[in-house]
C-alpha cells in the first residue's frame, strides 16, 4: 500500500502547479471567466503542448497511458486555481467515451485531434426530467435509412458551445427509464436541427440547453453498440466523478488556505479573529473535512482501475458523498469566516464556494450518492 507519488507524478504535479501559478491569479481568472468564451484557447494549446490532453488515454489510442491517478493529480491542482478550460468535458468525458466505445475509425478521427488540442467535445446526457439518473433518457433516436433521426431536449450540457462534436445519449428502444436501449451518438455541433441555448453557470463556466429536432446522423455516428450505451456512460461518469472529486480536493484545500490566512490577518476587538476559539475549532473542522476528502479522492483514483464493478461503484458513491458534504461545509464556512468580505465578487473566496456548490451537485448530489451506496451495499 502506498499513497506517495512517483517521481514522474511529482513532476506532473509541479508542472500543473506552475501553470496555475502563472496563469490563474484570482484577477486573471475573473477576467477570463468574463470573456465570451469563458476560458483561453492559448491555455488550451499550452495544455496540449505539455501533453496533458493526451495523458489519460492509453497508448493504443495514441495517448500517453496515464491512469486515473494522473488525471486526479492534474484535476486536484487545477481545482486549486479554479481552472476554466474544458479538460473534464473534452478529455475525461468526451474523449473517454470515444476511447472506450469508439470504432477504430472514430478513435483515429477524434482522439489524436483531442490530444493535439484541435478538437473539443461535450457530453449531453442530462434531460429536464432525469435529475441524476443516467438511464432516464427520453431523447429518441429512430432508425431511418442507414442512419438515425434524433429528437429530444438535453439540459445543462457543460461546454457545448465550444465543442466541435457533442456526444448525445438517446433511446433507440424501450421505455424512458430502461437500462437497456440507450445508444450514444457523435453529433457535429453544426448539424441542422440541433439548436443551443448557451448560458453561464454559477461556477463561472458555460453550459447549454440543446434541442434536437429531426437531427439526421449517419450510422457512423453511433458510438459503441446500439442499445448498449449505459455501461459505457457509467464507466466514463465514474471516471468523471473521480476527476471532479480531485478537483474539489484542490479547491477545498485552497479555500481553507485563503480562509486560514484571512483569519490570521483580520483583526477585530484588537486581536486577530483567528484567536477566537470558536473560529479555531471551525477552521479545524474545515481542515479535517479536507483531509478526509483527500483520502477518499486518492482511494477512488486507485480503485477505479480495479475490475470489480461493484467495488468500484461503491467507492465512487462513497467518495462523492463525502466530498459533497465537505464541499458544502467548507464552501459555506469559508464565506462565514470572512464576514462581509466573503460576500464580494471581487474577492476570490466566493468563487471557490460557487464551484464547490456545483461540484456537490454534478453527477449526483450527496443524497443521491448515499442512496446509491446503500443500494450497492445491501
Amino acid at each position, binding site marked *: 500500500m502506498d499513497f506517495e507519488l512517483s517521481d514522474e507524478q511529482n513532476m506532473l504535479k509541479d508542472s500543473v502547479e506552475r501553470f496555475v501559478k502563472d496563469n490563474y491569479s484570482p484577477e486573471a481568472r475573473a477576467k477570463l471567466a468574463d470573456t465570451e468564451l469563458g476560458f483561453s484557447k492559448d491555455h488550451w494549446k499550452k495544455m496540449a503542448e505539455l501533453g496533458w490532453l493526451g495523458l489519460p488515454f492509453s497508448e493504443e489510442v495514441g495517448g500517453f497511458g496515464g491512469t486515473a491517478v494522473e488525471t486526479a493529480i492534474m484535476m486536484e491542482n487545477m481545482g486549486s486555481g479554479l481552472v476554466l478550460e474544458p479538460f473534464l468535458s473534452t478529455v475525461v468525458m468526451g474523449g473517454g467515451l470515444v476511447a472506450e466505445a469508439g470504432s477504430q475509425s472514430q478513435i483515429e478521427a477524434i482522439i489524436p485531434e483531442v490530444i493535439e488540442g484541435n478538437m473539443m467535445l461535450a457530453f449531453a446526457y442530462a434531460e429536464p426530467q432525469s435529475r441524476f439518473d443516467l438511464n432516464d433518457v427520453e431523447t429518441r433516436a429512430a432508425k431511418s435509412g442507414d442512419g438515425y433521426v434524433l429528437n429530444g431536449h438535453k439540459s*445543462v450540457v457543460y461546454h457545448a458551445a465550444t465543442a466541435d462534436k457533442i456526444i448525445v445519449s438517446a433511446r433507440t428502444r424501450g421505455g424512458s427509464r430502461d437500462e437497456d436501449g440507450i445508444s450514444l451518438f457523435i453529433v457535429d455541433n453544426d448539424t441542422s436541427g440541433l439548436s443551443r441555448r448557451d448560458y453561464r453557470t454559477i461556477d463561472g463556466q458555460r453550459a447549454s440547453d440543446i434541442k434536437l429536432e429531426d437531427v439526421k446522423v449517419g450510422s457512423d455516428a453511433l458510438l459503441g453498440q446500439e442499445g448498449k450505451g449505459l455501461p459505457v456512460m457509467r464507466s466514463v461518469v465514474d471516471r468523471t466523478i473521480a476527476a471532479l472529486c480531485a478537483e474539489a480536493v484542490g479547491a477545498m484545500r485552497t479555500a481553507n488556505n485563503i480562509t486560514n490566512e484571512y483569519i490570521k490577518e483580520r483583526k477585530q476587538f484588537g486581536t486577530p479573529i483567528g484567536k477566537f476559539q470558536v473560529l479555531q475549532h471551525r477552521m479545524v473542522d474545515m481542515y479535517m473535512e479536507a483531509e478526509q476528502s483527500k483520502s477518499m479522492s486518492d482511494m477512488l483514483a486507485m480503485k477505479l482501475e480495479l475490475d470489480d464493478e461493484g467495488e468500484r461503484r461503491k467507492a465512487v458513491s462513497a467518495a462523492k458523498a463525502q466530498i459533497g458534504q465537505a464541499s*458544502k461545509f467548507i464552501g*459555506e464556512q469559508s464565506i462565514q469566516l470572512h*464576514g462581509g468580505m466573503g*460576500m464580494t*465578487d471581487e474577492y476570490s473566496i466566493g468563487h471557490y464556494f460557487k464551484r464547490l456548490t456545483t461540484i456537490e451537485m454534478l453527477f449526483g*448530489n450527496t443524497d443521491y450518492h448515499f*442512496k446509491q451506496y446503500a443500494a450497492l451495499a445491501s
Partner: protein
Amino acid sequence: MDLSFSKEDLAFRDEVREFLATSLPADVKDRCDRGLHPTKEGQIRWQKILNEKGWMAPNWPKEYGGTGWTITQKYIAAHEFGHAAAPIALPFGVSMVGPVIYTFGNQEQKDKYLPRILNSDDWWCQGYSEPGSGSDLASLQTRAVRDGDHYVVNGQKIWTSFAQNADMIFCLVRTDSNAKQQEGISFLLIDMKTPGITVKPIIGLDKEHSLNEVFFDDVRVPVENRIGEENKGWTYAKFLLGNERTGIARVARSKRQVERLREIASLERSGGRSLAEDQDFINKLTRIEVDLMSLEYTELRYLSMIANGKELTAEPSLLKIKGTEIQQRLTSLLVESLGMYGAPYEAERAYAGRNEAPVGPDYAHGPMAEHLYLRAATIYGGSNEIQRNIVSKMVLGL
C-alpha cells in the same frame, strides 16, 4: 395561556387576505416570492399602497402612525404577508431609524422624518459598518468634528445596503476620540445629497449590486441632525440593533419557502418519481418545518412576554441565530430541488434588454440568487458567532 383566535381576529385575517389579494401588485409579488431584491420603484409603489391603508408601521406606537394591532393581529398580518409573498417594508426606515427617532429624537425630528418614512418619501440606509469595524462596531473611526452649527464628517462606511437608492443615511460617527470607545459615538442623520459623499458599488457574489462603500470627505452636517445627546450614540445604536435582531428571524417568509418547496417538489422528478415522494427530501423538509415551528412559538412566547411588560435580555439573539440558519437551509434545499437547473446563473442585469426568459423551469429563476445572497444572513445584523457570544455572556453568565 391561550392560542385561539377570537372572532375579531378571524375577521381581521379576512381583511388582510382581502387587501393583499386586491392591492398587492403582481410584479412586486413575483419578485418577492422568487427571493429577488425588490426594485426601487416597485418597493416604493408597494409601500405607498401600505401607507394609504395605514399599515406601513405595525410596530410603531399609534400616536406616530402605528396600527395599534395586538400581538395576535401582528402575528396574523405577518403570516398572511408571508403566505401571499407580500414584501414587508424595507427595514432601514420603518424598523431601524424610525423607532430611534420617536424614542430618542426631538419634536422637530419626529415631525420632519416620521411622516416621510411612513410615506416612503425618503429611502434610508444604514451607515454602521466600516472596513476596520464590523463585529467590533464600537471601534468605528468615521469622525465628526464640531464646527459652529455643523459637524464636519470624514471617513468611510462599507457594506451599506442599497445606498445607491438612498436619500438619507443614519450614521454612527466618533465625536470624542479620547473617551472610552462606546462613549465617544454620536448618531447622525445625513442627507445623501450633501457635498462630499461618494457612493461606490460593491458587486456581490450573487453578481448583483446591493452593497456599497460610502465615503465622507468634509461632509457638513447640521448639528440639528444629531439624535439625542452628543457621545450617547451607542445607546441608540444598540437599541436599534435589538430591534433589527427581532425582525431578522423572518418566520413568515420561511413558512412561505416551505410552501414553495412543496410546490417545486411536486413538479420535479427524482428516481423516476415525484421529488415530493423522495424520502430524503421529505426528511430534510420535515426537519426544517419542525425547527421553524419551534422558532415560531419561541418568537410568539417572547412577544407575549414583551406584551405583558416583561424585560428580555439576549433572547432576540436566539431568534436571529435560529431564523437565519433556517433561511439558509431552505434556500439550500430550494437549489437542491432544482437538480441540474441549479447551475445556470446570470445576474439580472445580463438579462435586461435581451428579452429572453431565464433557462430551465420558471421556478428555477430566483432560488440560486437568494441562496447566494443569504449566505450573508448569518453575517449581517451581528454575525451568528457574535450572537452566541451575547447569549453566553448575558443569559448564561459565562
